[in-house]
């Protein structure tokens, strides 16, 4: 179930690596710690303490701000989320400093880059090719996702899948007999990835259920590492590029021959 709703919400696109959850912590109804009208999550000094109640409250506050802002900077998004699914995700570096934040209302609308929208007062599309969701692969991500059908139930007896470039990354499903419709948690990439990764990936996900609580989406996630050359893609790239260059130079040039 935890993985289910991470798939459903925006955070699903990141939670494919690991799933984890944090439930049942104290509720706070104000997260605007610096008085700028923008909720600050997680509460400063407590990274990792995002739970469903906190996430739900922050999501509601963000929804109000999105509705008030009303203006969306147009862009070639390449990102979307369709269905009664939404949520928020915040990425942090290994020191616990926020890196990027995205939000999408479960009532619809675009995925919004919460960080940039804060700065200039105009909603900026997030998870796009030009403005991907930046994730420090040595840090962690907090997420909150929600999905419900018209009756308020979460997806029952559902199946979900995540793909990139036509390649299946992960898939699963759950009966969800309790009809849970939201989830929150932390994806600790630094602790769970065997090595940092680097690169921008376009990921698509779908979820279908027997009670009509469906969702599908796609977007760009940019993984960063302190040394891209030390990542699997970087190291393999060096080896292949160097080997290919040597092969081109010494093994594939036309050759002069003399035939008797």
């Amino acid at each position: 179930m935890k993985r289910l709703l991470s798939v459903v919400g925006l955070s699903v696109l990141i939670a494919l690596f690991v799933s984890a959850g944090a439930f049942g912590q104290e509720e706070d109804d104000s997260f605007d710690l610096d008085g700028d009208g923008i909720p600050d999550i997680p509460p400063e000094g407590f990274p990792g303490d995002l739970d469903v109640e906190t996430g739900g409250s922050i999501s509601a506050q963000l929804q109000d701000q999105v509705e008030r802002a009303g203006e969306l900077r147009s862009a070639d998004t390449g990102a979307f989320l369709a269905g009664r699914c939404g949520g928020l995700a915040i990425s942090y570096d290994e020191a616990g400093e926020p890196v990027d934040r995205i939000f999408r209302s479960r009532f619809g609308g675009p995925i919004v880059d919460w960080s940039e929208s804060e700065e200039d007062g105009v909603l900026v599309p997030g998870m796009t090719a030009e403005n991907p969701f930046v994730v420090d692969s040595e840090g962690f991500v907090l997420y909150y996702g929600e999905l419900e059908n018209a009756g308020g139930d979460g997806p029952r007896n559902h199946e979900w899948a995540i793909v990139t470039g036509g390649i299946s990354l992960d898939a699963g499903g759950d009966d969800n007999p309790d009809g849970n419709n939201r989830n929150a948690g932390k994806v600790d990439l630094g602790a769970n990835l065997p090595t940092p990764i680097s690169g921008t990936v376009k990921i698509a996900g779908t979820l279908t259920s027997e009670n009509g609580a469906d969702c599908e989406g796609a977007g760009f996630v940019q993984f960063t590492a302190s040394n891209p050359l030390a990542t699997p893609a970087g190291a393999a790239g060096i080896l292949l590029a160097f080997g290919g260059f040597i092969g081109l130079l010494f093994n594939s040039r036309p050759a002069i021959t003399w035939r008797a």
Partner: protein
Amino acid sequence: MVTREIKKRPVRGGIWGLLFGLGVALLLIAFNVIAFGTMPPYVVAVLGVVAGVLWGIYGPAKGSDEPPADAEVT
């Protein structure tokens, strides 16, 4: 009597070009220049193949321009 010929190597060039193109594509992905799951990585790999084939055909030929010392050139 010997004849000078140039042996072209488009297949070898294509194979090495593919490896080179894949390497460049991976580096571009690692440095967040292009995105995995989109067309550009495939385009870079194909460009590597094309460049390799052209290199194998039109690249500077290696080998001696001088015929064997005891040969009569036609």
